[in-house]
């Protein structure tokens, strides 16, 4: 409920002892409604017929230790004037409100002083002005709000860093080991002599021939062994190339035993593509020749780039 008592005009404050020679006191208060802790502004006008100087003080007669509804914050003398033999003085005061609900302003004391500064009269005024002080919390709230669960403090970065560094370190170590392992495997593979591999295959082929392998199949296998050897040993693409292309690539390299290699490949081509049927003895001789050719070329290893096959025409 809102009470508008003195917010819009000057209202007289009633003195405790009214009579002749008693100054007239009027009071204006703003605002009429406020929150707890807010301030109200009071302007007090004192009209004194005896031309004595007036002063205002709050709280006289009130226990200073108890909790008060209004607490004076500041007090200021604004103006002083003289009208038709009467002095008029204005005071502006600030009060902080602490009580809630409808409240009556506290009494104040007006003291009159003579020229020498001695108090000639002291009158206590009790204002009838009321203000409404609202509480900060909603009075309609009846339930307790749910309490939020306590948050766990974040793990500090300094604690995680060693773990992260450890993971990275382990990963790096694993990669390094893999790289070294690959190098070792590659090196060991390079160490395997293509000539030795070819010789071993030739020996195996010779055994198969003795065991009854048809000679034309032997030539087919011989061709594959020779091409594989040429590809690994001279780094030419012999497995995907035809005999003419191999001949051209080997000619470029100028290797020893070129004629013998070509003879073997051409013989194999005759068996593969011209339906030629060699006998066992011929096959054995060809295997022997192949073995000799590989032996004679094993120390020649070009370190050039692989020879590229050109487009015919």
């Amino acid at each position: 409920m809102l009470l508008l008592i003195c917010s819009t005009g000057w209202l007289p404050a009633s003195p405790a002892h009214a009579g002749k020679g008693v100054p007239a006191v009027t009071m204006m208060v703003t605002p009429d409604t406020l929150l707890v802790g807010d301030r109200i502004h009071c302007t007090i006008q004192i009209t004194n017929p005896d031309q004595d100087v007036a002063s205002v003080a709050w709280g006289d007669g009130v226990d200073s230790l108890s909790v008060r509804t209004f607490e004076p914050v500041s007090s200021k003398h604004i103006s002083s004037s003289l009208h038709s033999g009467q002095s008029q003085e204005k005071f502006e005061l600030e009060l902080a409100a602490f009580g809630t609900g409808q409240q009556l302003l506290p009494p104040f004391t007006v003291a009159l002083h003579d020229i020498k500064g001695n108090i000639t009269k002291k009158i206590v005024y009790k204002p009838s002005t009321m203000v409404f002080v609202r509480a900060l919390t909603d009075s309609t709230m009846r339930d307790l709000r749910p309490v939020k669960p306590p948050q766990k403090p974040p793990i500090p970065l300094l604690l995680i860093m060693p773990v992260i560094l450890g993971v990275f370190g382990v990963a790096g170590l694993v990669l390094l080991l893999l790289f070294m392992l690959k190098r070792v495997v590659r090196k060991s593979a390079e160490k395997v002599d293509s000539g030795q591999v070819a010789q071993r295959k030739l020996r195996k082929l010779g055994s198969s021939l003795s065991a009854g392998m048809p000679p034309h199949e032997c030539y087919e296998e011989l061709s594959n062994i020779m091409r594989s050897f040429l590809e690994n040993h001279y780094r030419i693409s012999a497995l995907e190339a035809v005999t003419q292309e191999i001949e051209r690539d080997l000619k470029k390299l100028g290797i020893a035993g070129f004629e013998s290699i070509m003879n073997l490949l051409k013989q194999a081509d005759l068996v593969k593509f011209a339906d030629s049927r060699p006998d066992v003895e011929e096959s054995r001789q060809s295997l022997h020749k192949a073995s000799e050719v590989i032996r004679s070329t094993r120390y020649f290893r070009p370190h050039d780039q692989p020879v590229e096959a050109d487009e015919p025409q």
Partner: protein
Amino acid sequence: MQLAVELEELGTRIIEASKFLEHAEEELSQRIIGQRDVIRRVFIAMLVNGHILLEGVPGLAKTLIVSTFAAAMNLKFQRIQFTPDMLPADLVGTMIYNPKEMEFYPRKGPVFANVILADEINRSPAKVQSALLEAMQERQVTIGSQTFPLQEPFMVLATQNPIEHEGTYLLPEAQVDRFMMKVIVDYPSYDEELEIMLRSATNASKVPVKAVVHSGDIFQARTLIDRIYVDPRVQRYIVDLVVATRVPAQYGMPELETMIEYGASPRASIFLLLASKAHAFLQHRPYITPEDVKAIVYDTLRHRIRPGYEAEAENIKPSDIIRQILQHVQVP
């Protein structure tokens, strides 16, 4: 190591029967400097009854090669300059009215010759191209109601310019497919050009070309070529190469799937085998090796592979695709 008796005997006969080509080649070299590969391809096509599409910029002696070839081979030669206003009748012939006898009689067109040079074939509209290509395929021509077989040997060498396409009629794939080979005529080497310049920059009359071949030589050679041995391994290799243009992923080339819009037709396998046989014949061999196949695979397949959008965007030519296929398809 000896060949089988039949092949040995065939080899001897091939050496004898192919001598006329050596003579013709020698005669051609009197007039033409370089272009040895082109001449060889022309021989191959003639030996197996095929036709050739020659592609090259102007001035590379395409017409000279064909006319000299026809003269040296003792064959009737006709040069037909294809133009936009040409009609099929200008090519195959037409019915002419004889007022004295009051009847129509057929007048045969220039297509009735042994060697036809269809110069700039892509300058004529589709109906003229179709008339020629029909003659190439059927080897006969119908004028009015009469059908006339064309002379044997009958060979068409068509030329087209790769750089000038304005006002031309692009040959459709179905018609290009009828050419056994598409041969790219390239510029001569530095030394060849020097010799061409010295020989040609003269007012003296040109050396006449001698006919060094009898018509029977060609037919005998064709009979022998039919007998050339083709091992099943080589047969499969040829089919592998052609099929790889259709399903490259099956041959370990998935990246080519998007590069090829259409692969080669079965006609490619037929022509590849025939051309390989002729190549082996030129090498005096009674059997085919993968070398023969590889030697002519570019000319036989390049006009039968249609590159896809991605290939065109990356400027990948059919030759590049064929090169990749050759690297992946295993040689027997």
